């Protein structure tokens, strides 16, 4: 039987007993130096607490974890020698600052956009009552294109790979960064208006780019976000938005 209660983790340190956010507040007010925190002890207690929570099947109070992580971070920063122009010092600054304050700042910055969202909502409501000329229904009279099999795709890929020898890029070794994610974005953008399989590979001749693009296409097909069609056997393959 699961209890729905939530318990807050209470730290029991030599000089402090209480919840973690109170401890963080002490650090912020400089009543307590980060370097002095007995974090090994604290972590041990937290792990015991986690075991207990799991045993009793209570809901975990997650904020403690975030605060604990912040304390560890602060101590680690305190222990490391300081270097000039340290980017991470801003993070430490922010971590010490009140999370409430951070939230308030963010809310203030985003306020105009929330107001803009309300404006857009009004516009949307007004405009949705007015209809332009209707577009022809999707079920048009063009014959349904035959199914494209994986072998058709592989065949097309083989053609692309054979057709594009590695160009002058062979002279210099540059580590180009292609991720499947990049290529997914590219394919989606092109697929919107409809494009051909070959068109996906025109810019990047290198083997790595071609393969990454192909993998991206397979992933999008798996997700059902694009569609491939081939009007005739061994004909060009069309890629479009699903």
């Amino acid at each position, binding site marked *: 039987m699961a209890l729905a209660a939530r318990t807050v983790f209470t730290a029991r340190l030599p000089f402090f007993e209480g919840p973690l956010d109170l401890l963080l507040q002490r650090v912020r007010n400089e009543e307590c130096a980060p370097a002095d925190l007995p974090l090994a002890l604290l972590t041990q207690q937290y792990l015991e607490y986690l075991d207990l929570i799991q045993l009793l099947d209570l809901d975990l109070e997650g904020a403690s974890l975030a605060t604990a992580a912040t304390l560890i971070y602060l101590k680690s920063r305190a222990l490391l020698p300081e270097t000039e122009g340290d980017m991470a010092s801003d993070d430490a600054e922010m971590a010490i600052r009140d999370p409430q304050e951070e939230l308030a700042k963010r809310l203030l910055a985003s306020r105009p956009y*929330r107001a803009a*969202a309300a404006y857009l909502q009004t516009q949307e409501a007004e405009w949705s009552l007015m209809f332009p000329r209707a577009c022809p229904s999707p079920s048009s009279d063009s014959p349904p294109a035959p199914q494209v099999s994986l072998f058709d795709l592989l065949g097309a890929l083989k053609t692309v790979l054979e057709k594009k020898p590695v160009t002058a890029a062979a002279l210099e070794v540059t580590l180009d960064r292609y991720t499947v994610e990049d290529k997914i974005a590219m394919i989606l953008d092109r697929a919107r208006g409809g494009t051909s399989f070959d068109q996906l590979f025109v810019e990047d001749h290198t083997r790595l780019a071609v393969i990454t693009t192909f993998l991206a296409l397979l992933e999008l097909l798996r997700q059902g976000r694009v569609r491939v069609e081939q009007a005739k056997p061994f004909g060009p393959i069309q890629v479009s938005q699903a």
Partner: protein
Amino acid sequence: MTPDLRPIIEALLFVSADPLSSQLLAQVTEVPEESVKDMLRAMGQEYGAPGHGVRLVEVAGGYQFVTQPELAPWITRWEGLRHPQRLSRAALETLAIVAYRQPITKPEVEGLRGVDTTGVLYTLLDRRLIRICGRKDAVGRPISYGTTPEFLRWFGLRDLEALPTLNEYEETPVVTQPDGGSAHAT
């Protein structure tokens, strides 16, 4: 005998599924753009008078006939048209940020909203309200997003400049209602 300018413009606007710019109309009719604009203004006023089923609007950089709003119940009753799906508050906020700050990357949007916006961005991309418009020249080369012509059409905007400036919102705080209306906070 060449017909008058007005029927030609009317016919072109009738037949087109997309808004037509005054520039395009001028090209097709071989008439100076200023004359076309004058004609469109006059037509706009005529169709604005009561008794017409359609009105002439300026949206997404062009002109278009749209049905009068009070006729919406009849239009939606007709099976030919799907009921347009309104956007969620999260989608509207994200869209507002993209619209005003484009080109903008996903981390920048999330910095302002404070929540993960992956799902919302996909939805907006799917609905063609935003598009990928390149990459930012920064660490990780993140993708940057911008709005589309479909965005302008969905909200009935002539162009991006038609959006109020961000400062204007500060003056009259507006509250988004979950049910689709909106009210000015007092």
